[in-house]
């Protein structure tokens, strides 16, 4: 079944369809990496494309449409993380630390899963600017130039943010 929105002109709809088909995968990967879990990825992907659809007329072409979409995804995810953090407060942080999904298996496997859960928590708890730089550059391995453009920061600032984020995550992993 196809849902038709009466308020959407056909040309806008076709353009949004095209954007969705072309960029959905990349946007979902980025959101997944920023969230460090799968819980809300689909909702946030839809929210990203909804906001893009409503703001297409404001896209000024100063960056590529992909960069613009990734920027919206970063904002959508940031808002989601703030809300989640506010709603759950410290309880969620605590829960995220102590309740990773453990698979039954040998000691190495359990230890590895616990370490990965701690790694995810460490990434999630980074300040916004550091988390976004770390995820885009280190986890998604996108080019420095592209990430700097995406986050609208100078290259030197980006290098600094990535280095600080790596230091914090590394310290969190070694400190536990």
């Amino acid at each position, binding site marked *: 079944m196809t*849902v038709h929105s009466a*308020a959407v002109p056909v040309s806008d709809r076709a353009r949004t369809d095209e954007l969705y088909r072309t960029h959905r995968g990349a946007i979902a*990967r980025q959101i997944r990496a920023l969230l460090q879990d799968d819980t809300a990825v689909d909702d946030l992907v*839809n929210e990203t494309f909804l906001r893009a659809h409503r703001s297409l007329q404001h896209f000024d072409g100063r960056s590529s449409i992909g960069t*613009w979409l990734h920027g919206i995804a970063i904002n959508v995810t940031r808002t989601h993380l703030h809300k989640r953090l506010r709603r759950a407060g410290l309880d969620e942080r605590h829960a995220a630390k102590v309740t990773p999904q453990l698979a039954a298996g040998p000691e190495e496997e359990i230890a590895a899963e616990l370490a990965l859960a701690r*790694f995810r928590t460490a990434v999630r708890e980074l*300040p916004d600017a550091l988390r976004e730089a770390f995820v885009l550059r280190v*986890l*998604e391995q996108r080019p420095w130039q592209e990430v700097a453009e995406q986050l609208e920061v100078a290259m030197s600032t980006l290098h600094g943010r990535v280095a600080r984020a790596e230091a914090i995550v590394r310290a969190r992993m070694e400190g536990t």
Partner: protein
Amino acid sequence: MTDAPQTPRSPVPRYDELVRRAQAECCAVTDDVDPRQLDAFWGHVELGDRQARRRTTVVQWGLWALSGIAVANILVFPTLPGYTCPGNDSVDVAITLALPLVAILLSLLLLRSTSAGGQMLLRALLWSSALLGALVNIVEPSVVPVTAAFAGVVAGGALLILRQHGLEPERYTGSFAPVAHRGVLTLMMILAVADAQTLVSWTNGSYWHHPAAGICGMAMVVGIVGLSRLELWGLLLSAMMSLGVAIAALLGWLGLPLGVVAMISGTAGAQVLLAAIVLRSVHRGTPTELPLLARWGSVFVWLVIVGVMVASVAGPLFADAEHVHHHYSDFHHRH
């Protein structure tokens, strides 16, 4: 010679290994798009549009009701409940309410604006209406108590309902990345609109006695329009206009009481300061948003709005009627 104790191999993966695993997890999401995902997305759009329409309709009805009450207050002032000032006349009320009424009608027009500048101006108009409602009912609860209370409640309620809708970062277009300074720019706009409203209310439209007040009012409107364009020239223009108003107020050209002079020159000075902060940030290429406000700003703003709504309703309820009567009679005697 003794053998060095052998460290057992740790089962915990190293940092680099964890990064590799996290990278692999990210890459597990494929580029394939299931048609059902696309349908779900359009369902999401449909739902979002419905919610937006409902939100706009509620705010629209509230603002129409508020403008109706303001008009009724102008036309049938003495018959409205809460009227306590026999020395009053309807001409003053008409002038006092003229600009707030224009602000409300302008808000109705801006409600469907798709540009961030238009939506920021809408927020500024709503904020100034709500603040003015609360201020009037706290300082002079006998003047227009019903209209002021409704202004506080309706404009505050509209702000709560609209939240950040229409102000999404991707809607900001402008030469100096205004999205990075949106909080400060909105605050500047609120102060400018509130100043303009205060100026008109306090001079009671007697511009033939104080032409400088009329010129300053026009200058403020030009500054507000410039600011809502979200261009650098608009920001500079607004700052210059504010500086002019502050100087005119301090030199006594506006014919205002000392307290109002202090308030207007203070807020105009604050706008100049805020403009300077934005310009410095633009020059440095850094945002002016505070990290703390990014996370807790919406909660803080929510509390302030609720406080303003309560104050606008509670003002007349707790006012000393006798004191208010004398205060207002004095005010009239002076003018």
